[in-house]
């Protein structure tokens, strides 16, 4: 057991855990977060996705000691129910889920891609989502929501 300090969704947390513990378990069990979820424990499905250093990370395979001082953003860190992030708003408007268990992987991956490359093509977005699994197959609506968010961003960036 070791005292570890984590910055998650804009707040500092001190937890006492085995440093080898996967980040996911700390987020769920010590910080009470519900966004990242256990799917496979092998970085195969994306359900545990968080953003770290601007990149999507599979928190099920990342030991908490490897996080360091950098900010971790989970799905609940993007926006709140009262004020969802624009990509969350697009998913809400499109009803882009069924069970919704996979959403951390879908939403955070799409956001990270579009943050890095606001004019990413549909194909580039799709390829980036290759490591994300949705077994309800809400794919059509999810891709529609992502496109909606991307085009909103572009309009915002280049006002007519």
């Amino acid at each position, binding site marked *: 057991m070791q005292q570890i300090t984590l910055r998650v969704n804009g707040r500092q947390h001190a937890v006492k855990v085995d440093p080898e513990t996967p980040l996911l378990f700390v987020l769920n069990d010590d910080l009470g977060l519900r966004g990242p979820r256990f799917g496979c424990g092998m970085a195969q499905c994306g359900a545990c996705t968080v953003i770290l250093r601007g990149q999507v990370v599979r928190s099920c395979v990342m030991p908490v000691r490897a996080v360091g001082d950098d900010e971790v953003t989970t799905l*609940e860190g993007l926006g709140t129910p009262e004020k969802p992030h624009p990509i969350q708003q697009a998913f809400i408007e499109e009803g882009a889920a069924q069970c919704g268990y996979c959403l951390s992987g879908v939403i955070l991956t799409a956001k990270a891609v579009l943050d890095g490359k606001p004019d990413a093509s549909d194909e580039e977005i799709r390829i980036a989502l290759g490591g994300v699994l949705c077994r309800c197959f809400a794919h059509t609506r999810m891709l529609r929501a992502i496109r909606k968010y991307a085009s909103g961003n572009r309009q915002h960036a280049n006002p007519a």
Partner: protein
Amino acid sequence: MQTRRDFLRSGGALIVSFSAASAQGPFDTHDSHIDPKKLDSWLAVGADGTITAHTGKCDFGQGIFTAQTQLVAEELCVPLSRVKLIQCDTAVTPDQGTTSGSQSTPANFNSQGLALAAATAREALLGLAAQKLGGSVDQLTAADGVIADAAGRRVTYAELVGGRHFNLPLDASAKRRSREQWTVLGKPVPSLDRVALMTGRFEFVQSVRVPRMLHGRVVRPPGMGATVASVDKGSVRDIPGVRVVVRKDFVGVVAETQYQAGLAARQLAVRWSPGPELPAQRSFFEHLQRQPSRDTLSVDSGDVERALGAAAGVLRAQYRYPYQMHGSVGTSCAVADVRAGRATVWSATQSVYPTRSIVAKLLGLPLQNVRVIYVRGSGCYGLNGADAVSFDAAVLSQAVGRPVRLQFSRQDEMMWENLGAACVVEHRAAVGADGQITVWDRADWVASLGNRPGYDRPGNVISGMLAGYEPEPLKPGPAKAPAGKLQNQSNAVPCYFAGCIDGNCGGGGMIRSERVLTHTVRSPFFTGPLRSPLRIQNAFANECFMDELCAQAKADPVAFRLQHLHDPRIIGVVQAAAKAAAWETRAAAPAVRKTGVVRGRGIACVDYEGGNGYAALVAEVTVNLETGVVRPVRFVAAVDCGPISNPDGLRNQTEGGILQGMSRALVEEVTWDNRRITSADWETYNSLHLDYEMPTIETVLVTPEGVPANGAGETAITVTPAAIGNAIFDATGVRLRELPFTPERVMAAIRENRA
């Protein structure tokens, strides 16, 4: 953050006004103490006018929570926000069995269950208002929780019964509001879980945490039938606080943290005695057909052998469907708190009351001391690991005397779930000179072991079997002659059959020389309902073979189907799909190119379970003749489920169903070696990920008048593999009779066709 305890406390406060029912002692159905014949079991009006409704049908992402909330709001004439729906909790909701089989809509949206309760409540409120205001009920109008008379005098629901019981039975004559009156039901209301889901606040069963909770893991055998020889508890002594729990062949560990529990599960030294070898996968379908079987005749006109003997040409074909998985994205999870002779289980089971019975049996507790509370898990698509993990969590919690949260590893989930059944279907049929099918004989062999545990069969899933309970036995025996009403036998009976039993013809089709014989045989793996259980298998075999008969008759696949159908509802969806897809009538004789990428279209249709929803699907695919890669590019679906509760939800279910069906048609297949399932993660069990280039999907909703509400979550998926198979034939001239349509299988068939 709201803790589980706060949640229960607030829930408990709400329940107090309600659970006076529990003081009234046990009632009739399945030992449930909540009498479904009493209005107060279903509905209450709070002192603030809030309508609290109880349902035994739960939401696992299919949208039934929102639809049921709409139903109650509609019947009670209140806005959606005034309704609080509580789903599936054995302490408060009526026993409605299992949420499965596309039965939630028939059960709760027609003239029984929740719909009847809500209609009874509205009429009761109107009756009370008439007394209070003086005058007759037909002079009153209800809106927004207020009843008013012609003179403008008003009384609120809360003033009439707020915080009190109705003390009324359900009234079978209570009238539903008519479809023309609907203002909430039938509208594309956004699903109520959206905001919480998209912002990461939604509470899944995987998110449930209770005070003093420990973490468990199971240690499953290395293969089917293996038994514990010995467990070396000392092998995990270096992990602080670990407890090892062994009960016959059930082995589990409990620790303070998930991480420690995972370490302990991997490190625990268990010696296993291996079970019998598994039948080889490469010859598995032949193996199935050689096993002793329990036989069922769904229909038998008695003349098929004679008719086949007399036919000019008999077409025969064998279709094969592999084992497939539910493969939930989140592994199954439950939290159990078993202390002082009482148990509470937070579970994603589709069957809270049956699960309560099994937990009571496994723990040796009286039924009334066990409470099962439904909390939604990852999408299940049928019997995934939700029941098994609930039983395991309860056993672990009882052993350690503290609450235990248990979540399966990916391998625990995929090696031991109740798979979608493998089966073989054999057809023999003939087409007459007039182009009509004269005779169709059909036999199938279905692999079966275990199933839903129900109220008394723990051994139907792995947990129960490891704890020493047998799965439901399969007694081989010959079929009885069909009698009574036609049983569609999970769509084993093709929709083109007249389905005549003793002169009563319950089928939707024209074929009168007909036989359907099902052989149920013992499966080496657990099996259980997977979205469209056996219906998808049967529809694949039936609808592709129908296409073969069509090709033999040199007829158009739409016209050929229509000329063998008389049920107006299935005719309706076939015509609607063909029209929306701009289907060009032509004989099913593909123009075959030899190279490059070819394109084709196919159609398939289903009368789901014989009267529980109708769907027709046109698929357009391309096939690369060099690589064998099949790419669906467009689907056009027509769906008829009667009155639609929520068109947006229906479209979501239809789209998701088609794509799930596409994944199952193209890539999904369970594999095994001589001891164990080897497709136990997402590298070894294929599923189309989010990078797959998606086809376009158009959905036409067909809504005939004067029919009841049917299920809708399983109709479109049922016909997807068949529609794709028929489109591949149209594109290539090659008939694929085994799923999945992998490039290897497609290339092998193309080469064979060229030779």
